[in-house]
C-alpha cells in the first residue's frame, strides 16, 4: 500500500524532519530534499566543520530541542531518500525539478510537503548595502555554522524576537555587541506580560536574554529610528534617532531585520491559492490547521506557511505528515493530532502577543529617503518606485516590477518585495494587501546555464 505513496518533503528543518518522521513511523519512505549540507534548518543549523563548541554553546536554551531533532533525523536517515545540498527549483503538477551537484532531474511525487521556512524581512535604509551589514539570520548562521562573528564591534538592530536572541548568542560566544537597537518602544514589551500565561517559557527566556545583555553592559535602546549606516567600503558606524535626538555609535558590522517573511515561491509555482495575512503583512498560501493547501496532495507547514516559530514548525510538520496519511486513507493517531492542533492554536494566539511586542516600524515607508536603494540586485531606488507609483499610476507589485525592474534580479524579490510592497502601498495610501504579490517564476534561485539534465527519476 505504501509503495504507491511517494511523498516529497522540501526542507529539512524542524518542519521537514518532523513530517518525515511521522511518515517513516507509518512505514512510508519519503524523499527529503534540503538546500543545506546537514539537517536542522536555519534555527538548528549544524556546524560545517566540527569545532570545540558544545551543542549548548550553539543552541543555548534550545539545546534539548536541537539535539532531539538532529537525533531523530539521524535515526530515520536509512528510511528516507535524503538529498542534501539540493535545490527544488520548480514544481509542476506532481513533479519537482531538483538541482544538485551540477545536474538537474525531475522527481515525481504522490504528495508534496513544503517546509521551506523563512528569511529575514529586510527594510532598506541609508547604508544598508555597505559591506559588513548582515541580516539577523545571516549573522546567526555565520556564528552557528562557521563559528565566526560578523564583526568585532557589532550593532544589532530591528524588531522581532530574533533581535535579542542573536545579540545574546553573540555575547555568549564572546563577541562584542556595541548595542541592541530596538525600533519598537519599550512600552510595547509590556504586551509580553499577556503571554506569560500561555507561553511562560518563551516569554521568560526572552526576558532573560534582555536581562543578560544588560547585565553584561550591552546598551539596549528602544524606540530607535535608524538613520544610516556609515562607511564606504566597510561599516564604520551607525546613526539613529531616539526621541528626536541623534545618536552615533562606532561599529564595524550591523545585523538587522524586521521579523521574518515566508518562503512561498514553490507554493505559488504549484498553483496554491494565497490569502493575505495581516499579522505577517504578507500574502501566504491558504491552508488549514493540518497544512492542506488549495491544491490536492500539497501541504505547507512551518514558517513557510506563515510565521510561527520553531516550536510551531515541529508541531506543524508532524501534523502535515499526519494529513498525508489521513488523505491516503491510512489510520492515524487521532489523540496525538488533537494535541498537536491544540498546541498549534495556542501558539497562534501567542503570535498576536509577539506582534504587539515587536511591532513593524510603521513610519518607515513614508520616512525613508528617495535615494536609498530598494532593490539591490537591479539597483532601483525607493524614489524610482515612488515615481512609478505617482507618475505611471502603478498600484500593483507585478506592474511595478515590469516598469521599474524591482524584484527582477537574482533574488527574484525574495529580499526586496516586502519593502517594495510597503513603499507602493504607502505611496497611494492604500492597504498593503491591495498591491498584491509578485508572481513566482522558476528557477526560484539562480541555476547554472550549463546544468546537465538527467530527465525523469523514480
Amino acid at each position, binding site marked *: 500500500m505504501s509503495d504507491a505513496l511517494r511523498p516529497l518533503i522540501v526542507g529539512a528543518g524542524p518542519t521537514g524532519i518532523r513530517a518525515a518522521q511521522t511518515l517513516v513511523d507509518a512505514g512510508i519512505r519519503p524523499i527529503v530534499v534540503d538546500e543545506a549540507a546537514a539537517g536542522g534548518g536555519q534555527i538548528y543549523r549544524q556546524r560545517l566543520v566540527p569545532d570545540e563548541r558544545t551543542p549548548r554553546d550553539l543552541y543555548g536554551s534550545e539545546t534539548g530541542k536541537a539535539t532531539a531533532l538532529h537525533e531523530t533525523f539521524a535515526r530515520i536517515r536509512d528510511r528516507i531518500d535524503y538529498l542534501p545540498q539540493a535545490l527544488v527549483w520548480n514544481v*509542476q503538477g506532481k513533479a519537482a*525539478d531538483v538541482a544538485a551537484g551540477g545536474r538537474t532531474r525531475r522527481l515525481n511525487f504522490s504528495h508534496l510537503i513544503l517546509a521551506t521556512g523563512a528569511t529575514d524581512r529586510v527594510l532598506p535604509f541609508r547604508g544598508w548595502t555597505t559591506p559588513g551589514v548582515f541580516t539577523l539570520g545571516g549573522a546567526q548562521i555565520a556564528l552557528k555554522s562557521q563559528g565566526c562573528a560578523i564583526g568585532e564591534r557589532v550593532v544589532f538592530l530591528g524588531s522581532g524576537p530574533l533581535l535579542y536572541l542573536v545579540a545574546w548568542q553573540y555575547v555568549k560566544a564572546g563577541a562584542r555587541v556595541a548595542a541592541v537597537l530596538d525600533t519598537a518602544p519599550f512600552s510595547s514589551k509590556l504586551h509580553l506580560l499577556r503571554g506569560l500565561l500561555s507561553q511562560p517559557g518563551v516569554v521568560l527566556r526572552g526576558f532573560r536574554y534582555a536581562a543578560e545583555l544588560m547585565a553584561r553592559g550591552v546598551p539596549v535602546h528602544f524606540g530607535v529610528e535608524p538613520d544610516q549606516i556609515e562607511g564606504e567600503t566597510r561599516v564604520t558606524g551607525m546613526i539613529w534617532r531616539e526621541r528626536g535626538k541623534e545618536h552615533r555609535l562606532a561599529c564595524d558590522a550591523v545585523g538587522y531585520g524586521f521579523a521574518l517573511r515566508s518562503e512561498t515561491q514553490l507554493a505559488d509555482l504549484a*498553483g496554491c491559492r494565497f490569502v493575505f495575512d495581516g499579522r505577517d503583512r504578507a500574502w501566504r498560501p491558504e491552508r488549514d490547521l493540518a497544512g492542506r493547501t488549495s491544491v490536492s496532495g500539497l501541504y505547507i507547514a512551518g514558517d513557510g506557511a506563515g510565521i510561527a516559530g520553531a516550536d510551531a514548525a515541529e508541531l506543524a510538520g508532524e501534523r502535515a505528515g499526519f494529513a498525508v496519511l489521513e488523505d491516503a486513507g491510512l489510520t492515524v493517531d487521532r489523540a496525538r493530532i488533537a494535541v498537536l492542533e491544540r498546541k498549534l492554536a495556542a501558539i497562534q494566539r501567542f503570535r498576536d502577543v509577539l506582534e504587539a511586542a515587536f511591532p513593524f516600524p510603521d513610519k518607515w515607508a513614508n520616512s525613508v529617503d528617495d535615494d536609498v536603494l530598494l532593490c539591490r540586485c537591479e539597483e532601483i531606488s525607493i524614489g524610482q518606485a515612488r515615481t512609478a507609483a505617482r507618475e505611471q499610476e502603478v498600484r500593483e507589485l507585478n506592474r511595478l516590477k*515590469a516598469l521599474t525592474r524591482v524584484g527582477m534580479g537574482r533574488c527574484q524579490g525574495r529580499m526586496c518585495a516586502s519593502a517594495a510592497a510597503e513603499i507602493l502601498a504607502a505611496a497611494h495610501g492604500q492597504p498593503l494587501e491591495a498591491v498584491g504579490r509578485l508572481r513566482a517564476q522558476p528557477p526560484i534561485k539562480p541555476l*547554472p*546555464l*550549463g546544468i546537465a539534465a538527467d530527465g525523469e527519476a523514480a
Partner: protein
Amino acid sequence: MSRILHKDVAIIGGGLVGSSAALALRRMGLSVALLDKGFCGAQASGVNYGGVRRQGRPPEQMALSQRAHVIWPRLKEIIGIDGEFVRSGHLKLARTEAEMASLEAYATRVAGFGLDLELIGRNKLRERFPWIAGDIVGASLCAGDGHANPRLVSATFALAARRAGAEVLEHTPVSHVERVPEGFHLSAGSGTEIRARFVVNSAGAWAGTFAEAFGEPVPLGRIYPSMIVTEPLDVFMTVNIGAEGGGIYARQVERGNCIVGGMRAEPTVDLDFSRPTGSGAVTIMNRAADLFPALRNTYAIRCWSGTEGEMSDRNPVIGFSRTTPNLIHAFGFSGAGFQIAPGVGEVLAELIRDGESRTPIEAFTIDRFARMDQGSPAGSVPEARKRETSK
C-alpha cells in the same frame, strides 16, 4: 457604479496594437476608449522576447514592417521613452547547408523590400562574431533590425494614449459587444457601458470570441513562447540572434542580462497565464551555453512565458470585418507582432479615419480562411495546424 461612455472608437485589448492605435486615433482627434481585461501590455505585448526584426517575415508583411521600422527610432518623441530600442542588427544563423540555402533563397525573395540583407560565410562569421561557437555554416545579417524592451514599450504606449486623452480602462473585461443602429454597444466590467461608432478587436489570444460574435470564426490558436534571462554580464552579444529553422534566439540588453528563447511553455491553472516547463527551461539554458561560450559559467535567474494568439497560416488578421460595418480586426500575430505592432496601430487609425490605409493589408483579411475552407459547414472553426515547436 454603472456609467455610459460615448466614444468614436472602442478598442478591445490594450496590447501594443490596441494602445498604438489608441494613441494614433487621439492624435487624429477622435475620442477613444481603450479596454483591457487586465493591465495594458501585460500579456504577449509586454512579455515577449523583444525582437524588433523585419528579417524572416514573409513578403506580404514587408510593407507593414517597413512602416513600423521608421517608428521605432522615434519612440522617445512618440511615447516619451526610447523603450531601450537598439538598432543592433539581427543575425540569423544557419547550422546546416540546407539552412544556409534557405537564408539565401529568402534574401532573393525579399530583395526588393530594402532590408539590405548581408549573407555571411563561415569564416567571415567567425571573424566578425567570435563569441558565437558551434558549427555555424553561415548567417544572414539585417543591420537595420534590433531589439527593445517590451514591458516598457507596450505599457508606455498605453500611458501615452491616456495622456493624449484616451479613456484607458484596465481590469475592465468586455463581456458583451453588439451592433446597434448608431454603431456598437459594449458592456464591460464594473458596470461600464460604451457606445462607439467603431470597434477595434485587438484582443490578441482572446480575440477569437469577439470575431465569432460577429459571425467570423477564425482558426486562432494559442502559443506560449518561453524565455530565460541570465544575470547581468559584460556586454558581448552585439546583435540580436536568431536561427533559421528556430530553436534558439538571443539578445543582450543594455544592463547586461542575456535573454534567450526557443522553447514553448504550458498554460497554468489560470489558462490566461503560462509558465515554462522545467525541461524546456533547461533545454534553452543548455542551448545558450553551447552556442555562446561566454554564458557557460553564468546563471539563469528567471524564466517566463506569455500567451500569444497564432493563426493557422501564421499571418495576422488585420482589416475590416466582412460581416459588420465599422468593426475592425487586428490580432493573431503568431509570435511576431512586436516589431510591426506600432505600424498596425497607425494603419488601424487610418482605416477608421479614411476607410482605407496607404499600407497594403489585403493579405490579412479575415475571410481568407473561409475562402480556403470552402465547403466546410458555416461557422465551424478549423483546427489550428500543429507546428513543431523545438528542434
